[in-house]
């Protein structure tokens, strides 16, 4: 059996452990260790993506890990069209974040990089796991480093934000854990051992539903437990309040990973577990999902307008854009889910840029308060250019990647409401498009253009550093590349969605 998927987890793990112990005089070296190991991971991920290792189906790994009279847990990893994009995105963003941070030195640098690498371990595990036990372990593994990242390296209100982040997401994942228990127990006959592999549970539930051992009501309850866990992570209104706080206080690197790949764990879980294993329950909850999605989109967009902190504004825009993902999923149609996944990918790239740019505002100018800023374009032209690219991509400008995430989802939603004969609901989408364009353009106008601000001292403001420039350039290129050639990502998603449509 090949070890490619395992090595995607093991390589960052080794990096994390090495970085952790590089204290004292070797502290400065820890960043290069992190860069080395995350680059190796990215190389592996890219080779995997372009098919050097062969077909995805042949790469699965599975070993029985824990076995007793009531449980069988497997160390099982699999990759398919859905997870490969997330794996690539994770590997990419972790490397970029490591490089991005080179321009800045902080105390206890080695722990910082150990946390980033530990996060990569967890993220890779979540996206590759094919067993509920492993999935849950990895889910928790991502949470802890993020908590420490915020509470150790964050802004002034970091302790409050970190604990809020932790409580929200941890309680949600515990609800999910109970859901996993119930799902596992339901999937077997009394006396049998519960096999926690995705495949076995899925089959067990299908058989149970067919024979009538499990009622529709029970299965929709289980769906709700798991969905709640994922929804808080995404996050959807009304469980979103941890996100703006976490982002405002987190260091830029943490924000990028949090918004870029960690939020996607939620939507990934919804597709991979809720929809794939319990399609009938998904039908049952369809309107609830759509309602949550619409509320998140609109509320997030309105939230953006009210923010004065650039980073908080971007955080709210994440809520709105993740709502778009949820909307696509809620359509339960081929196009809907395809572009929901594309939106996950697109949002990962764009939001990384957004948070880097906004985080830089804090470092370079000294404040992120929009009312205090103004006319930065003259003094920091490169910075302004990247900010414009990021904002334009995020508001869905055709030709950039954001367009393919947003517009087709709305199309899919239109198809859905047409079949349900409630076309007036498209109003919500129109409203969201307007609001999104509005808050980005307004924010850009107030920060970059107009007369240079007199409210703060701009004499120390400087343009982007070398490493920051390189990272932002790479992201801009990717944003444009997938904007003109969305098929590059869609070909993988199609593979998966074809399979998923067979299940539904």
């Amino acid at each position: 059996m090949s070890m490619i998927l395992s090595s995607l987890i093991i390589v960052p793990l080794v990096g994390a452990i090495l970085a952790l112990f590089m204290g004292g005089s070797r502290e400065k070296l820890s960043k290069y260790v992190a860069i080395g190991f995350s680059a190796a991971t990215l190389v592996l991920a890219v080779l995997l993506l372009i098919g050097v290792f062969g077909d995805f189906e042949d790469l699965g790994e599975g070993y029985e890990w824990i076995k007793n009279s009531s449980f069988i847990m497997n160390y099982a990893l699999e990759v398919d069209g859905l997870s490969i994009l997330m794996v690539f995105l994770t590997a990419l963003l972790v490397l970029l974040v490591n490089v991005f941070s080179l321009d800045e030195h902080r105390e206890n640098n080695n722990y910082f990089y150990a946390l980033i690498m530990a996060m990569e371990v967890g993220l890779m595990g979540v996206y590759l796991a094919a067993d509920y036990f492993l999935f849950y372990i990895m889910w928790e593994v991502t949470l802890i480093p993020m908590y420490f990242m915020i509470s150790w390296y964050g802004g002034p209100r970091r302790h409050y934000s970190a604990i809020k982040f932790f409580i929200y997401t941890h309680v949600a994942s515990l609800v999910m854990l109970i859901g996993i228990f119930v799902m596992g127990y339901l999937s077997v006959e009394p006396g049998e051992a519960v096999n926690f592999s995705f495949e076995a549970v899925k089959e067990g539930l299908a058989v149970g539903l067919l024979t009538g051992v499990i009622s529709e009501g029970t299965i929709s309850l289980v769906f709700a437990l798991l969905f709640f866990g994922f929804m808080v992570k995404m996050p959807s209104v009304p469980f979103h309040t941890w996100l703006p706080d976490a982002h405002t206080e987190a260091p830029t690197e943490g924000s990028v990973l949090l918004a870029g790949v960690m939020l996607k764990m939620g939507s990934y879980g919804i597709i991979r577990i809720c929809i794939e294993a319990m399609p009938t329950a998904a039908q049952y909850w369809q309107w609830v999902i759509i309602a949550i999605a619409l509320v998140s989109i609109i509320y997030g967009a309105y939230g953006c307008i009210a923010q004065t902190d650039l980073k908080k504004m971007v955080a709210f825009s994440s809520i709105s854009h993740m709502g778009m993902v949820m909307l696509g999923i809620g359509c339960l149609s081929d196009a809907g889910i395809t572009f929901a996944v594309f939106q996950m990918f697109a949002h990962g790239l764009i939001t990384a840029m957004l948070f880097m740019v906004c985080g830089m505002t804090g470092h370079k100018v000294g404040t992120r308060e929009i009312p205090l800023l103004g006319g930065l374009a003259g003094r920091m032209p490169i910075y302004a250019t990247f900010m414009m690219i990021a904002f334009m991509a995020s508001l869905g400008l055709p030709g950039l990647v954001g367009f393919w995430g947003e517009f087709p989802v709305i199309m899919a939603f239109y198809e859905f409401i047409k079949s349900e004969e409630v076309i007036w609901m498209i109003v919500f989408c129109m409203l969201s498009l307007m609001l999104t364009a509005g808050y980005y353009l307004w924010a850009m106008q107030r920060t970059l253009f107009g007369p240079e601000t007199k409210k703060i001292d701009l004499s120390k403001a400087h343009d982007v550093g070398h490493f920051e420039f390189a990272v932002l350039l790479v992201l801009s290129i990717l944003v444009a590349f997938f904007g003109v050639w969305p098929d590059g990502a869609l070909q993988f998603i199609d593979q998966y969605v074809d399979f998923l449509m067979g299940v539904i």
Partner: protein
Amino acid sequence: MLSDFMIDTFGDLTALLTMIILAIGALSFPAVQMFVKKHTVTWAYALILVVLALVVDAILMVDGIEMEYLGVRLSPYSTFMGLLFLTVLSLVVLVSNASIETTRNHSGAYYSLLFGASIGMLFVTSSYDLLTIFVGVELTSISSYALVALKRKDGRASEAAVKYAIIGGMSTALTLYGISMVYGVTGSTTIADIAAYVAALDDTPWILAIGVLCMLAGYGFKIAAVPFHMWAPDVYEGASTPVSIFLATASKKMGLGVFIQVFLFMFVGAVTAGTIFGETFQYIFAIVAAITMTVGNVVAIAQPNIKRMLAYSSIAQAGYILIMMAVMTPNAEAAGLFHMFTHVFMKGGAFLIVGALICAGVGEKISDYKGLAKRTPVLAFAMMLFLFSLAGIPPLAGFTSKFFLFASAVGTPGEASGEWVWLAFVAILNSAISLYYYARVVKAMYIEKGECTEKIKVPAMFMVAIAICVVFVIVLGVYPDLIFGFAEAAAGMI
């Protein structure tokens, strides 16, 4: 196999073998100490004996031997618990000679008391009669009072010992009172007879209920279940660290063993039969479990002293383990036993590090741990592992055992009953709370700047003991099958 050899050689005495080995030690240590006058020799002698007993017990456990002699019942359950107690004892003995806290002048008495207390524990878990269990518990308790008091020059230790003895005496009285009432109603002190009587009951005789409640309160003191927990933090703080380890990990497990043997046995028939009497007690256990874990975790947040914090955290851990008393399925028992076992290594490991650092001149306050990662990276990392394991962070032992435990509260394969889901939810929420105070220690060690930057050197024996704990915290987390099968076999006996 080896167990056949033992049975051929010792015959029926095999059932008592571990206790005999410990008894030889307990009786001979003062003499050895008197004649040899070298602490290291007494220590080595004690270590050899306890390792011997550990090996004997492990062999009997692996082969699943069942036998009975002189009212002592050797079973997969008793050998499993025996392995737990003897593991703790060997860890404690291992560091006792290196620790500056254990009074050297009394090392003969010290080892005698430790071994005596352990004999009591082994005796408890192989008994099936209320009176013999009572005798075993008293043997352990009385030895423990003396162990706490051995740190003689310390005011806190004396206070702790007095407190411990008074509260222990009260719990003894309560227990005996309860036993007398139960005996009065059922006419027997053998648990199997009582269980049969209870299972056949249609109504609830109040005097029996009061008797059982008295016993519950009495033994509740032993496991420091809320509201009988007040003594534990004071005692753990006052006692020397090796003794604290012994009390927090072994002594408490004996109490939980009593819970399993007495109450579980007594009610499992009644619960299966579905009588109100049985179900009422199931709910009492569930509520005690929920309150115990919540109080333990919430109060732990406010503790500035690390030993007190760990004491409250072990109160909380007892709360988790009590879940098995409410759920009463074989899965839950196996998971509970397994959690007791992993708890030995994580809590024992954390206390060992505290003890090692005391030897190196670091204080007991959490603020004394500032900057520890710079002074001793290895110990700081080990401490982080133990605390994370206690909080239930994967892939460490504490996570795996909690996973099994909480899963058992949700249902059994093929059936998600939903009756105890709320208990699982409370327990899981509590694990989330607990991470808060464990993370505080980790933060002090890794991020905050300490006044002192001098490197720390700790005694070698502490390092060995800590290394053993680290290995097991990781191995049992990644490969629980190593022990879980035996926990299942032990639970099968119940």
